[in-house]
């Protein structure tokens, strides 16, 4: 593999080529060990500004993660109070669990001045950065491919892992499938991650539509019967036919048969539950009050709930999760604030789930961050009674690019960090950047050097390992 020679080249070039990291950041190195066995990156995506999250300029929108006192300067030192929803604003009533007494940031490393330094502040581009460690301007197309490999591909190629050991779980479907794998010739679809969008799949559409029941009784809801035995038997017979049929071209994504079978079994369990609670159970206690008074899920809630199920079932080594609901902010500022509250509860639920599940507890590194921010100026859309209107993203001002990272897990040094002395050739921010998060996640998996050398080989600036937040 050419990565070895690239690595050697990289090392030979040393500080001049890659940028010498000073004490709080460094290029990835092989050989270091971590307590964590898996890296999970959760993007509270849709564009989240520092001012509303850590600054709490509109009240404490994320109290479980960050408490109620602003964590960045310029927003005061007092309790920010409850989320400031405009009088007259009508929205579904939120269902949220009781607030944590001690916010999660105190248990982990909070980087309060992370910078999404380059690339378009767009959702797919930000998500692509979080899967690859590459700033990019990827087109919004399902067949668009990053130049760099994703973390899924690197992990699978380096470890010969199954597709079910590397997951991308996304609120948004469609062109986000582009992020299963990149276009780098040494990687590609043979090492693609598993990809699922729970809001598209975790619902009753399949049993309702395919069973064709025109009259559905609430005490006899349709299900899909697909037992592991029938799945196995159908696949064995199918193999008889496929043995006589030319294979698809190398450009067609095909997971290994055993991975597809396991994915089918996983989904079949959901569609086979006659209570429909497997789509989204009332017991999770996060969402909105439905018409009938019960609990309705949001897109982000479905995404996190099924992230937990996937973690529980497959215990993957690498996972990237993209939320999106806060993006309503383009024309619904209050919805943006409310969605932050839901995301706050969901991420907290996810961490509590991880720390209460054997096989995940104390061996999972969780990175939580926005994929980018939002612009500094209101856009004038749908102004509320407090004079606040929508906020766009994509222009690339500091509102778009100043974000944060909360890193939770056994290898992180608790505390609030905001270094301004991170040095690397080509790094103008002097700060930790979004690409560093991905490199650090890769480093925990033992792939930091491969990610770094591959990006360097493409002439791209790789992220640094965030030494300053590691124990």
């Amino acid at each position: 593999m050419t990565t070895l020679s690239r690595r050697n080249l990289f090392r030979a070039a040393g500080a001049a080529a890659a940028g010498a990291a000073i004490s709080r950041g460094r290029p990835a190195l092989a050989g270091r060990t971590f307590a964590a066995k898996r890296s999970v990156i959760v993007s509270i995506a849709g564009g989240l500004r520092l001012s509303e999250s850590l600054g709490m300029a509109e009240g404490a929108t994320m109290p479980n993660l960050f408490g109620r006192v602003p964590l960045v300067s310029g927003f005061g030192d007092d309790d920010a109070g409850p989320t400031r929803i405009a009088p007259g604003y009508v929205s579904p009533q939120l269902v949220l669990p009781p607030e944590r007494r001690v916010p999660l940031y105190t248990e982990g490393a909070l980087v309060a001045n992370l910078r999404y330094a380059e690339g378009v502040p767009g959702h797919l581009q930000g998500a692509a950065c979080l899967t690859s460690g590459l700033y990019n301007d990827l087109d919004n197309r399902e067949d668009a491919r990053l130049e760099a490999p994703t973390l899924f591909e690197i992990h699978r190629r380096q470890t010969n892992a199954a597709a079910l050991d590397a997951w991308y779980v996304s609120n948004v479907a469609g062109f986000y499938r582009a992020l299963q794998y990149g276009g780098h010739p040494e990687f590609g679809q043979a090492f693609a991650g598993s990809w699922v969008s729970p809001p598209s799949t975790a619902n009753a559409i399949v049993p309702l539509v395919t069973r064709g029941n025109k009259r559905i009784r609430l005490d006899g809801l349709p299900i899909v019967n697909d037992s592991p035995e029938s799945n196995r038997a159908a696949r064995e017979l199918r193999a008889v036919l496929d043995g006589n049929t030319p294979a698809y071209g190398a450009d067609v994504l095909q997971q290994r048969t055993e991975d597809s079978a396991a994915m089918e079994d996983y989904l079949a369990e959901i569609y086979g539950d006659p209570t429909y609670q497997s789509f989204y159970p009332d017991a999770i206690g996060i969402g909105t009050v439905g018409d009938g008074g019960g609990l309705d899920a949001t897109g982000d809630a479905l995404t996190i709930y099924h992230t937990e199920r996937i973690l529980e079932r497959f215990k993957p080594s690498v996972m990237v999760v993209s939320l999106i609901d806060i993006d309503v902010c383009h024309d619904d500022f209050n919805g943006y604030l409310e969605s932050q509250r839901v995301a706050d509860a969901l991420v907290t639920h996810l961490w509590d789930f991880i720390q209460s599940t054997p096989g995940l507890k104390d061996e999972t590194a969780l990175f939580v961050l926005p994929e980018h921010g939002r612009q500094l100026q209101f856009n004038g859309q749908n102004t509320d009674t407090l004079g606040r209107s929508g906020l766009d993203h994509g222009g690339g001002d500091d509102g778009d690019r100043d974000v944060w990272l909360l890193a939770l897990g056994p290898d992180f040094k608790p505390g609030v960090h905001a270094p301004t002395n991170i040095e690397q050739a080509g790094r103008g921010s002097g700060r930790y950047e979004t690409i560093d998060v991905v490199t650090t996640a890769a480093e925990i998996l033992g792939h930091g050097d491969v990610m770094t050398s591959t990006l360097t080989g493409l002439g791209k600036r790789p992220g640094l390992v965030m030494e300053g937040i590691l124990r």
Partner: protein
Amino acid sequence: MLKRMMFAAFLVVGAAACKDEYAFDQAVAGDTDSERVPRPKTDGQFLRSVYADLLGRAPGQLEVEIVDEGGNTLSEFPLDEQELLLVVLDGVGDDDAMRSLVVAGLVESEELSLPAKADVADPAAFVSEQFRNFLGREPNAYELDAFVAAWSRDPAVDPKVVVRAIIGSREYQSQ
């Protein structure tokens, strides 16, 4: 439960901003390569063909009535079969798994009446008929032997599994 079913129906409508998508279906003009490598059907092609071959019709509107335990109508609404199933198929990166599940549901459709295994007197004839129905050809000797042997040997192999296997095959799934 009702809200969950309704939720399924309106999920596709509730898209947030920033989700514009530009879909490209690659085409090659003047390709004379007779050794063309097969490509999988698109999700739309798959749905239309499986509805036609299995149910004898195109995907359409399913008018659903929800009734309570006493038989009282609670709600009535239409479900656009193709639009909704395309959303689901788009939501899983492994087409093979999700398509298989859709077919697992369709073989139990109220519109279809596959026989029970015990009611099939001649498994070879049944298998051959399914090959003709879905692939437009007879099974070769190897295929027929393999299917009939599995029918006898494996309790999980039944008419539904035979149909699922043929529909799931690369031959059926290819354009």
